[in-house]
């Protein structure tokens, strides 16, 4: 008595349409993935040129400002409206270079919207080398668009010199942004 055992092989699950598409095109899809970063290259190289200083002090040159016997070359790092930076609020970066003859005479340079009450409250300090310094300043949303940007320079000899330029000259994008903010208490 032979018992003929019929063993059916386990049936393979039929691959889904998506799976078949993946196996057919995976090579090409991966090549496309490698190409995606190329689209960001122009922005990357322009940003790198900005960070290194190859494209100047910043995206928008403000020009030379005379501060007492010294002068400072100012630029907007990015020529757009202030950017929200977490708890700090809206921030704007200005870059600057001291005049070559005063680079070793200036101890500190400060930036403030509105005339400083004292040297202690002269605003944010510029940091970096005298040939390329940066100041990261908070722009309160209720700042008067007609306000002035005050530059305070403190010398190693103890002298202090101040100058101001209209905010509209320093950053037209910031003034345009402030005008859209409306009156706030």
């Amino acid at each position, binding site marked *: 008595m032979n018992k003929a055992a019929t063993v059916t092989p386990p049936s393979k699950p039929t691959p889904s349409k998506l799976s078949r598409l993946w196996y057919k095109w995976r090579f090409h899809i991966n090549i496309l993935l490698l190409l995606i970063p190329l689209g960001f290259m122009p922005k990357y190289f322009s940003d790198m040129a900005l960070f290194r200083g190859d494209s100047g002090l910043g995206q928008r040159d403000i020009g030379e400002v005379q501060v007492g016997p010294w002068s400072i070359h100012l630029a907007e790092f990015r020529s757009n409206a202030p950017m929200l930076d977490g*708890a700090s609020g809206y921030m704007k970066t200005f870059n600057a270079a001291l005049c070559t003859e005063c680079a070793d005479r200036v101890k500190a340079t400060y930036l403030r919207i509105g005339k400083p009450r004292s040297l*202690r*409250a002269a605003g944010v*300090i510029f940091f970096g080398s005298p040939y390329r310094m940066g100041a990261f300043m908070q722009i309160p949303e209720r700042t008067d668009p007609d306000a002035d940007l005050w530059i305070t320079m403190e010398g190693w000899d103890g002298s202090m010199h101040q100058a101001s330029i209209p905010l509209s000259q320093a950053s037209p994008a910031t003034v345009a942004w402030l005008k859209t903010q409306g009156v706030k208490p």
Partner: protein
Amino acid sequence: MTRRLSLRQLGTTALLLLGAGLSTVALAHNPMCECKEIDNGQIRCTGGFSDGSGAPGVTLDVIGYDETILVPGKLGEDSTLTFKKPASEFYVLFDAGPGHVVEIDQADIQAP
């Protein structure tokens, strides 16, 4: 296979989240200060930095409009300082070092 794949996916996601979380540590931290009027003509100021850290021991002076220091102070362990509201016009200066200051005018101090 599916379990291994999902574990790998989980690991990648966790790594990405960790990277994104740690990247905020590299951001600049700016001084911050807030003053509020509390009861009995007292004003309480709280200082700190935008990265969430406190500022115990940092100088906070109450200065008159004529630049005389009315209340020289330092923030306590809880990063706050409470003082009696001066009779004359004043502003508060949170001073964490040159160029790292916050000024609060008396007009910007909220009433209770």
